[in-house]
């Protein structure tokens, strides 16, 4: 076959060695394989992150204000407690802030009048979580147990079209929030 001669000084492509064409092709091949595997793995994982959320809407009509008794009404679908005191309403979430179980309301033997964030509030219930025993006072403040923060208060409004109460489960409000009907 051909006679092998030493490459002249400064030759660019020696047939073997760290910078040879063979070495380059091998590295390119392995690199392409790695890129393909990582790419496919990444694509597979990414496909599992949902792009569309079919969650229930966060703004929900709860019913006419007259359907709410004075005191507390639990709405299981929204996991929400709606409180009424005459013409004022407020809503507290029933989702425990510890690990997301539904807390249960327990009627107080004696209604308490309290001042929450500078506004008077009638406390009729307290809340307890069945999963890990967190306890909340009537305005949703965490008292004992593992709950790290108070139950969420949600924004209430009145629907323009039919006058129903509307809760916005995406809008947390302070403990001084009241919806007062005219």
């Amino acid at each position: 076959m051909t006679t092998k001669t030493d490459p002249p000084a400064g030759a660019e492509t020696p047939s073997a060695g760290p910078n040879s064409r063979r070495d380059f092709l091998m590295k390119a091949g392995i690199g392409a394989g790695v890129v393909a595997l990582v790419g496919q793995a990444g694509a597979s994982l990414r496909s599992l992150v949902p792009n569309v959320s079919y969650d229930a809407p966060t703004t929900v009509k709860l019913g006419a204000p007259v359907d709410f008794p004075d005191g507390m009404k639990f709405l299981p679908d929204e996991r929400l407690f709606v409180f009424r005191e005459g013409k004022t309403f407020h809503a507290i979430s029933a989702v425990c802030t510890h690990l997301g179980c539904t807390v249960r309301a327990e009627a107080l033997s004696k209604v308490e009048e309290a001042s929450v964030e500078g506004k008077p509030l009638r406390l009729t219930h307290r809340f307890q979580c069945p999963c890990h025993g967190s306890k909340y006072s009537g305005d949703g403040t965490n008292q004992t147990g593992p709950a790290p923060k108070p139950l969420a208060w949600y924004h209430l409004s009145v629907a323009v079209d039919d006058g129903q109460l509307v809760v916005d489960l995406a809008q947390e409000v302070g403990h001084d929030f009241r919806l007062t009907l005219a």
Partner: protein
Amino acid sequence: MSGTERAVSAKPGTPAPPSAPGVHPKPFWSFRPRSDREAGDAVVSNFLLHWFPAKTYKPSLDWNYSFWLGTASAALFFLLVLSGLPLLLLYVPSVERAYGSVKDIEFVVTFGSWIRAVHRIAAHLMVAAVFLHLVRVFLTGAYKNGTGRGQRREWNWVLGVVMIVLTLFLSFTGYLLPWDQLAYWAVTVGTNIASSVPFVGPEMRELLIGGRTIDQATLLRFYVLHVIFLPAGLGALLAYHMWRIRKDGGLAKADRWTLGSEKTEAPPAKTKTWSLLGVARGQAPAIRAVTLEAADRTVNSVNDLVRRISIVVLGTFAVVSILACFIPSPLEEPANPMITPNPAKAPWYFLWLQEIVTDTTLKIGSFTINGAFLGGVILPTILLGLLTVWPWLDRSPAGAAGIWFHASRKRQNLVFLLVVLLVLAFTIVGTFLRGPYWNFYWPWQAWPELPTRI
């Protein structure tokens, strides 16, 4: 194995070799080998037996050293795969129909309730068995490299830690498939624990449940994990785990048996011949070898090892099958996203975690760390991390490998046992002493009557 080998020609007068030298004389192996050669043949020619060594050190077979907990765990895993197959054809992974299909399995399908009970009881026992296996391996220092060459026992221990985590994930994904109240609230709590990790938590939860609310995507994800990814992963690791035991020279207890043993002359064994003269004269060269496997220290794997493994595996199957006749599998009310049962308890092997996430919410000044993160993520991670690296922290001598409660490992054994006892204590508190609203009740105290619905 150890020993040097040298081919020498056979003495004249040895019996004639089989007609085709080098080929196993019989198409089948024997479970009643009449010679060492036949015993070895079984290991070589049987696919299921080929993962055993030809010879086993006698102490490896002791009942009261390993208690065969690893074998029992593997048997339970195989039983779970087997009993899972019919369930795979009967269960429907849809939020509308999952509960109904499990109810059908329980009440309509012939033998359905028994198959489900076998699957469930085997799962419970497997959690217990792998846990006890881990305890045994720790207390005997069996993750330590002894006197053998090329041992990597610490890596087999790491494999084991991964496998116990996979076992727990398999249990978790399994008990939520019926989509009853237990299932739904377990997913809620479990994925909220994942969600409590700072920064990436909510994204992790979204990836786990396939959205922001627990729904069809969640069930399907956990179902696929339960029937494909987790068992495949555990099966692969199991095979690797077993292979490593052989590479590490068997059980740690057997290590010392190789120490100080004299090289002895093995009886000459005939081997195949490639020489025409050998074939023509009916002479085959024989292997003369010296061996460290003294005959009084080893037994043939066929049949001594096979017999004990069969006893353990079949015994495990029998125990589970009989228990399944008497212990019915519970099925709670269908999943109700609105009402959390009171109390909402995880299965017993997670109750220590449920107890810990209850007790670990910390307030530092105005800053609160959720117990979900501290007790549900940080603490288990620390425990698992310590377990994983322990073989490298254990400074006891190699001679402590494979001995129950070796004196040089006294302190670490005590600490380990203390942690085990704490976990058990939390489990007992969670199981027996927690009532509605996770309040503390002594067993003799009646739980208050509470409305089941608000």
